[in-house]
């Protein structure tokens, strides 16, 4: 197992390098570039643009930029004042030494912004996933146990509908109903806030934070619940017709115990794998939620960076995202082998 993991990690390194080269070229060769947009808001003279270009190192050829990005530029001289002369040693350490560079927009380290945004995204996603588990597990189990019952048909139809629902549109409708239409009868204010993590300028109160969670979480939950409850239903159906479940029932165990303790444990096995594969979505998958409800998380950070062409930010998020995909794939295989003793890797 150890050997297997090491081999997979070694295989992932060239993959990551190739993907990063492709992405870096794509990001850097795109026309427009980070300085094109700046001309619109604060009109910069062409010579100012040229200075900025030299300061950001955008006058260098792409392969050199990639090398600087990968291993840093503290071993060579760069042009810090933008006069066209390479005057002082660079500061960048490169991503191999954990330095993702500075954002073009804020000029602060990219990794700081990502850290802040990631905190908010993880907060949102953990609440979302907790609620998904609370809803999806009972639904999946019951609709499998009572296959083709009224409950099962209703749930299956609903989840079919849920999968066809465009996520962002659901968000808009939620806003329409709970922010625009429904008012709090006592105060006349909107029933639920339209966005943000909490009311600005108000001291911390759990009620206020919880209120701001309701709509974004609801929007996120629907897609995940339909996906996981369908999945659990089919994996539960595979399990409940096995002999050991009949044995458990023959022993006289209560139905609850048989289904939720004996059968569910095995039915959750494939679900763990699926969940591991879904991990990257926690990182940036709540993009639409964050944009519609102005949630200061990873998705919004990336969206803003894509609009600004903030190369270091884009590359950092893309690289971390790719790593997440690779790691979660590995994790899925490892966890599955750990949970299922029949599976061996050599």
């Amino acid at each position, binding site marked *: 197992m150890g050997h297997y993991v090491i081999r997979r990690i070694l295989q992932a390194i060239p993959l990551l390098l190739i*993907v990063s080269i492709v992405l870096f070229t794509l*990001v850097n060769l795109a*026309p427009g570039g980070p300085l094109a947009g700046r001309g619109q808001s604060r009109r910069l003279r062409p010579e100012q643009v040229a200075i900025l270009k030299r300061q950001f190192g955008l006058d260098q050829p792409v392969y050199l930029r990639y090398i600087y990005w990968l291993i840093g530029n503290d071993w060579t001289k760069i042009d810090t004042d933008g006069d066209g002369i390479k005057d002082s040693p660079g500061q960048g350490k490169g991503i191999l030494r954990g330095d993702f560079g500075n954002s073009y927009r804020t000029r602060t380290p990219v990794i700081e912004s990502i850290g802040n945004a990631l905190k908010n995204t993880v907060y949102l996603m953990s609440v979302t996933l907790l609620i998904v588990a609370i809803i999806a597990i009972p639904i999946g189990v019951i609709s499998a146990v009572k296959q083709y019952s009224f409950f099962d048909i209703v749930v299956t139809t609903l989840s*079919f509908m849920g999968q*066809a629902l465009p996520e962002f549109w659901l968000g808009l409708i939620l806003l*329409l109903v709970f922010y625009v239409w429904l008012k709090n009868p006592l105060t006349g204010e909107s029933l639920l806030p339209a966005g943000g993590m909490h009311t600005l300028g108000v001291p911390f109160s759990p009620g206020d934070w919880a209120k701001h969670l309701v709509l974004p979480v609801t929007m996120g939950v629907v897609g995940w619940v339909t996906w996981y409850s369908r999945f659990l239903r089919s994996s539960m159906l595979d399990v409940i017709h096995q002999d050991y479940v009949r044995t458990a029932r023959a022993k006289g165990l209560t139905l609850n115990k048989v289904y939720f303790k004996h059968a569910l444990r095995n039915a959750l096995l494939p679900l763990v794998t699926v969940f591991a594969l879904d991990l990257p979505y926690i990182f940036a998958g709540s993009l*639409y939620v964050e944009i519609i409800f102005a949630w200061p998380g990873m998705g919004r950070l*990336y969206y803003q960076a*894509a609009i600004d062409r903030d190369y270091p930010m884009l590359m950092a998020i893309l690289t971390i995202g790719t790593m997440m*995909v690779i790691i979660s794939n590995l994790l899925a295989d490892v966890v599955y082998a750990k949970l299922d003793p029949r599976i061996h890797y050599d």
Partner: protein
Amino acid sequence: MGCIVLGCIVLGVILAGLSPYDPTRSDTSVRFQPPSLSHPMGTDALGRDLLTRVLYGGRVSLLVGLSVMVITLLIGVPIGAIAGYFGGWIDNVLMRITDAALALPSLLVLILLSAILREVEAPFLKGNPVLTIAAVIGLLAWMFTARLVRASYLAIREMDYVTATRALGASNLRIIALHILPNAIGPVIVESTLEVAYAILEESGLSYLGFGIQPPTPSWGNLLSNATEYLQKYPWLAIFPGVMIFLSVISINYIGDGLRDAFDPYKVLQKMGEV
């Protein structure tokens, strides 16, 4: 069921030209009309008839869906077929490329590519927004088709009839295209059908974010994007395009499900009462 709903949508979309209104010309005397007899879905900020725009938008959205399907088939089927048929190092190389493509965080790259292609005219795409967005979505979706096709070819190439055909002197290309393909295509058709639904959702999302189809050309996504501003006062602008996306995606999914059952020999026998 699915066929009927989808049929109605397609018919409406094709007949959109019969509408008395122009999808792009504004008429400021009738701004923000609520739904009525003369404007069944109301009018938007520039006084354009929303129904007409939704139908024209449907052309774009459905066309993107179909183009994505064609693109994923054009890339995925040859790669999967060649990898599965020849095996060995060819298989290895092609599957590593597929793995690399699968390792990309798809939503992020989707946004990046469409943000780039919004400003640049790529060759072959000729600045055609529908083709561009379809190419972007297709480039990030062919891997599933390729894997599916590869798996079928791996199994089928071992069958006796393939050996017999080879003994008769058929070329590899002929075996791949004429003899194995018809037997491998079942699951691919199901997958491609669902791909259309997926592409419609992706396109609407991208256009909603402003990275997809650009106004004044309507698409279901950018209609919703415009509607966000007016959500408070003129909610119908946000409701109707979303309902259209929902209806077409759900009907395509139902059709895909039906096709899956139709291609599943066990299910067919079950229906005929043989099992």
